[in-house]
């Protein structure tokens, strides 16, 4: 399974049309066969980063299915759709992602909703990391062995939980690059995270925040809110 990750810089005055084009266009057009499904439609929360940015994640069955999807967009039934969508955004930055071994996300494409059913919004913290030169594999191993356990250390009151973990596919983005899709479970805990300094003991040897510096010190977090009709929430 591959994951098509896109960051759209939307024209503010056309934000509603853009969202409709994805709900009534992309999501429903993909439902016609078993190649791909829209999973998430997420707004980068205003007040936490750039304005009018939308992140979409689309699951694609495999490389051959992705090639068919690219052909539909270049010269097939989705060509008019993408032309219309382009008129609602400044640009889009895409990449293809492959799941890491410790990624919990398992997608049955046939079971992904495509009817636009409504639900409460959910908040995600999407972290993208760029490991140091030659350190990508060690970072992935440490993230799987140490970071995932750290997040699960208080199962009754998790702050965030990893829903999916990806590595950018060679030839379809920046490398090395790791992306974690983490659902926020504790809103008051998120406020504490944002408003208090990291406890000093966490910066000492033997703690993830210290030890992981060997592998990476550059990452970016985005707070993303699902649309009320996003297939995954």
């Amino acid at each position, binding site marked *: 399974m591959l994951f098509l990750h*896109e960051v759209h810089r939307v024209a503010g005055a056309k934000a509603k049309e853009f969202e409709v084009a994805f709900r009534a266009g992309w999501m429903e057009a993909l439902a016609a066969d078993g190649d791909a499904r829209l999973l998430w439609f997420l707004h980068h929360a205003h007040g936490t980063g750039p304005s009018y940015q939308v992140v979409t994640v689309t699951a694609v069955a495999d*490389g051959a299915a992705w090639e068919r*999807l690219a052909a539909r967009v270049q010269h097939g039934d989705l060509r008019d759709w993408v032309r219309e969508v382009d008129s609602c955004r400044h640009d889009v930055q895409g990449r293809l992602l492959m799941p890491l071994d410790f990624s919990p996300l398992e997608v049955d494409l046939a079971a992904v909703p495509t009817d636009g059913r409504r639900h409460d919004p959910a908040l995600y913290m999407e972290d993208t990391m760029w490991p140091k030169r*030659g350190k990508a594999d060690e970072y992935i191993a440490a993230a799987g062995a140490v970071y995932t356990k750290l997040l699960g250390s208080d199962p009754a009151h998790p702050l965030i939980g990893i829903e999916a973990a990806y590595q950018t596919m060679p030839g*379809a983005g920046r*490398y090395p690059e790791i992306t974690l899709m983490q659902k926020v479970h504790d809103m008051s805990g998120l406020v504490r995270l944002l408003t208090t300094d990291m406890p000093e003991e966490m910066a000492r040897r033997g703690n993830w925040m210290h030890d992981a510096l060997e592998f990476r010190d550059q990452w970016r977090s985005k707070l993303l809110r699902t649309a009320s009709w996003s297939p995954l929430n």
Partner: protein
Amino acid sequence: MLFMHEVHSVAGEHEREFEAAYRDGWMKLLARDDDVRLLWYLNHAHGSGASYRVVTITAVRDGAAYERLAGRLRRGDLLDWSRAVGALRHEVRGKMLLPVYWSPIQEIDLATVPADGSEHELSLYMEDTGWPSAPLDDYIQFWDQEYFRYMRAMPPEHSILEIEACFQVAHGTHYRPEAMLMQKVLDYGLLLNLISEPEDYDPEVWPGRYMHGGLRYRDQWESRLLRTSKWSPRY
């Protein structure tokens, strides 16, 4: 056919090892089957842009072959090579490209692409990447009608460039809207004129009509002057 375009930010002190890894590793390992072939290994000419940048373009048979290649890099016979190369560069940025409808290069017979590292003279390419303000399809058509057809019809003594390929980004693998021209420089004297003697173009006559008319489609692009290595399969 797909084309994997990668821009490598090479660690300067490892420049030679990086090139050797592509010549003796990537190019030869890909030749083991008919899925993929390295086409170009290009150095961004020092003095014309970013330092220690290498551009590689690799032809990939189709989407299934692309997925197999990614699997080989991640956990197959290319894993050790990938780790070694990862230590020789700061990062790499890749995109998958599709030829547009009028591109001279559409399909490559992968079996005929040299993979033996045989040496040849160097050549220079001008790689133009454009980001249109008009709809992408209209920009690509404009390039066909107002640029490619005129360049192809140019007498040899006036030909500065040969357009070998025009690509657009395959969906979801990089930036949109974007399209790219891969142009071989035929006449270095004419290139020098272009660089050193800016011309006032008559908007009524080509190429002025192209330069002025192009503003309806885009005013943002970037050119790179890329020099092939002496063993690059295409040059």
